[in-house]
């Protein structure tokens, strides 16, 4: 059953299609004619049926190749409204010159299926077509097209145009009988392709971006919305806008200004970039770094003290130039503090220990030079990036200055007298390593006071304070090498502890009768070469409380024994100790090893040290235990 019904429906389809082909070979005007096969003889056919207003419609026919049927009346059109009876009627109105059949309002039904046929006199049907009238509506084109200029772009190159028109009069849009939408197309006059704008139902539309000077062609066509057939195109209108004078336009002016500003900016940028260094110098002057001419800072970092000493002493090619005191006289910014060897120095900013003490005690030889401790920094020729204190006194004689410089740095173990060749020191805060100066120029044993601080040597039971005297120059022993090491290590006390284990076991505190109570390690070593059990002795070694990077205070407090480790041989030893003794290192027992003084020449001024006899008294510190010993 299913198969039979299926086959029957298939047959039905085939029948219908064949019927269509047979009865109406040319029934193609509702769709495109493209599928029409071109046969040898063209039969008469209905060209098209069109309605413009959905109220009437017309059909045109053609006789094709059958020229014998070209006479009027040879071909007839019959129509038939489906659903209203199967009665065929002839065309209500013929217009033979046009080969047209016109259906007026009385004969036109919308939403009704019409079938029209083209028949000859002999009832041969050449053509058949069925349609609904609303589907064959092709509205008339709009009328009264005109355009107005909307605006011109600031550049003066393009403009916008508004095109207006009216709906076709045949289409009764106002009554709502038909809805119409418009499609506008435009093109440049010499172009072949049209530009189509979007369909819309209003009777005006804007075209954007037309170019000045070009001529444009515009036309419009209509159709009913949701239907597929368009009407004919309207007559074209031409749009052209010639060059507009832009005297009012400020566009070029603004453009020029903008470009000019941009150009100037670029120029300034170039200038700045090319002169970058100079600008940077002006705006951000470089901060001078501490520097000594001829000495590479890297050397200091790496601790090549030998070379440093060499350089500082003036040896070698890279020797530092001798100090030129004239140099300074030209520099107004260098403050020179006059140091009078004879007079007591009143201009010093800092304590001048020895001189003050001696002056106080009235013991000292007045021939002492004072140096401002502020000049502990190495004196060097003026540098551009020198940041040192300007405190060199140019009035001093050179040798004096040399001597002064020699004693500049606390703990310096050099014979100032012999240090004429050497002018500069490295600005090491702890010590300036001077190369060995052997020569004794034989200058007077001047008393160079390097007591920058008045050091309290002891506290009297009565409440008085004993200050340690100033100190003499010292000659650096031949322990420079070891001192070098020790210096290095002295700076980092804890690190070098292990290394120094084989070194001195003792820390000696020696009383320096004339000095500030410091002694250096070398001297200490001399005093007690064999490692001897610590013994309270006359000598003390004070631990410089100050500018040591390590923490002597802490160390000192921890270890009392180092304070009290004199050797028996100490008693003979009255080596002057600089007020500043650089702590070279801290040995395993947490005692500070100080740098040995330069020379052991007895100072001219040696105040009695009341504490000589006292056992193991630290000069700078009095620990609580010792305090008990002190107090009688």
């Amino acid at each position, binding site marked *: 059953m299913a198969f039979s*019904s*299926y086959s029957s*429906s*298939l047959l039905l*389809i085939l029948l*219908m*299609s064949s*019927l*269509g*082909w047979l009865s109406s070979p040319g*029934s193609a005007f*509702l*769709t495109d004619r493209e*599928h029409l096969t071109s046969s040898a003889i063209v039969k008469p056919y209905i060209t098209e049926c069109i309605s413009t207003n*959905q*109220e009437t419609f017309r059909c045109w026919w053609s006789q094709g190749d059958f020229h014998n049927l070209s006479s009027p009346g040879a071909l007839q059109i019959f129509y038939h409204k*489906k*659903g209203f009876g199967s009665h065929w009627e002839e065309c209500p109105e013929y217009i033979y010159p046009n080969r047209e059949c016109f259906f007026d*309002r*009385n004969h*036109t*039904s*919308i*939403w*009704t*299926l019409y*079938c029209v046929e083209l028949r000859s006199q002999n009832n041969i049907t050449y053509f058949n*077509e*069925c*349609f*609904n009238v*609303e*589907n064959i509506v092709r509205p008339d084109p709009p009328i009264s097209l005109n355009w107005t200029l909307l605006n011109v772009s600031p550049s003066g190159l393009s403009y916008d145009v508004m095109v207006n028109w009216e709906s076709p009069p045949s289409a009764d849009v*106002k*009554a*709502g*009988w038909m*809805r119409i939408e418009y499609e506008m197309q435009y093109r440049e006059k010499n172009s072949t392709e049209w530009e189509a704008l*979007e369909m*819309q139902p209003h009777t005006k539309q804007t075209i954007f971006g037309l170019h000045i000077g070009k001529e444009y062609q515009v036309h419009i066509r209509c159709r009913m*919305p*949701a*239907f597929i057939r368009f009407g004919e195109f309207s007559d074209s209108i031409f749009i052209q806008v010639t060059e507009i004078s832009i005297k009012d336009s400020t566009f070029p002016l603004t453009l020029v200004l903008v470009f000019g500003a941009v150009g100037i900016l670029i120029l300034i940028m170039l200038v700045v970039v090319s002169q970058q260094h100079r600008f940077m110098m002006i705006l951000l002057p470089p901060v001078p770094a501490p520097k000594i001419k001829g000495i590479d800072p890297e050397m200091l970092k790496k601790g090549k003290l030998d070379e440093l000493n060499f350089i500082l002493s003036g040896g070698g090619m890279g020797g530092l130039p001798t100090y030129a005191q004239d140099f300074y006289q030209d520099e107004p910014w260098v403050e020179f503090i006059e140091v009078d060897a004879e007079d007591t120095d009143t201009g010093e900013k800092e304590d001048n220990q020895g001189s003050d003490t001696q002056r106080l005690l009235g013991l000292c030889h007045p021939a002492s030079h004072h140096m401002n401790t502020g000049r502990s920094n190495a004196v060097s020729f003026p540098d551009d990036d020198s940041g040192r204190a300007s405190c060199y006194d140019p009035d001093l004689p050179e040798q004096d200055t040399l001597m002064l410089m020699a004693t500049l740095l606390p703990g310096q173990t050099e014979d100032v007298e012999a240090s004429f060749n050497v002018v500069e020191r490295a600005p090491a805060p702890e010590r300036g390593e001077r190369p060995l100066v052997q020569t004794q120029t034989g200058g007077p044993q001047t008393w160079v006071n390097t007591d920058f601080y008045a050091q309290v040597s002891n506290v009297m039971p009565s409440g008085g304070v004993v200050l340690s005297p100033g100190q003499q120059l010292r000659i650096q022993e031949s322990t420079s090498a070891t001192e070098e090491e020790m210096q290095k290590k002295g700076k980092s006390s804890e690190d070098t502890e292990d290394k120094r284990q084989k070194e001195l076991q003792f820390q000696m505190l020696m009383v320096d009768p004339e000095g500030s109570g410091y002694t250096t390690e070398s001297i200490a070593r001399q005093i007690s070469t064999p490692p001897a059990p610590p013994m309270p002795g006359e000598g003390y070694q004070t631990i410089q409380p100050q500018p040591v990077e390590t923490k002597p205070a802490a160390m000192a407090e921890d270890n009392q024994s180092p304070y009290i480790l004199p050797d028996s041989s100490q008693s003979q030893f009255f080596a002057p100790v600089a007020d500043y003794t650089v702590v070279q290192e801290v040995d395993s027992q947490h005692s500070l090893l100080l740098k040995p003084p330069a020379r052991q020449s007895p100072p001219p001024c040696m105040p009695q040290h009341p504490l000589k006899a006292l056992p193991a008294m630290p000069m700078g510190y009095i620990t609580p235990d010792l305090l008990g010993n002190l107090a009688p």
Partner: protein
Amino acid sequence: MNRMNKMTVMQSVVWPLLLWPCLQTVSIPLDCREDQGGLNSCPSISQEKLLDRVIQHAELIYRVSEESCSLFEEMFIPFELQLQRNQAGYACITKALPIPSSRSEIQQISDKWLLHSVLMLVQSWIEPLVYLQTSLNLYDVAPDTLLNKTKWVSEKLISLEQGVVVLIKKMLAEGLLTTNSEQGLFHNDAQPEMLESVMRDYTLLSCFKKDAHKMETFLKLLKCRQTDIYNCA
């Protein structure tokens, strides 16, 4: 732009329609009398606005139905069998309705008759569209767009009917008591064969498209008559 119009129209039409509280079955007119006092929650809408919205609704329905028909034609109907060319056998279900079909006829009928014609048309298509939807759902290869469109159309048709009922009530000041008595127009026979069902559906779609256009035109003519009676010849 069409989409936007559609959405705005849908929103503008459906929303006021849905505000009526007495929304019941398809054909029962909405009872929104203002003399009922406290129960009254109908916002009043001017007749003109209502007519505008009904017209927009009808326009949309026509547009969507045309799209559906085109889709269907493309997919299922061979070229030779397209309805425009060969109308053998398949007629529309509403051909028997006493509805004017020419401009001259329409010009002669009254507003009342115009509205009632529209209502008749709308009511006669509600059930066939439901059938069409179920039939299309049986297809294996029916695209979702087609199904969605037909579904949308059948829903909006119901809204349109409600709008027209209210319009009749407002314009003609008459209540409508009768429901859809035209049920008999559509006979749902036994399940047809596949090919026949395709043709049937195609016919349904084409006919509905035609009738939707008719509804739209009638309503627009009515509007013209309301606003400018002299020029709406």
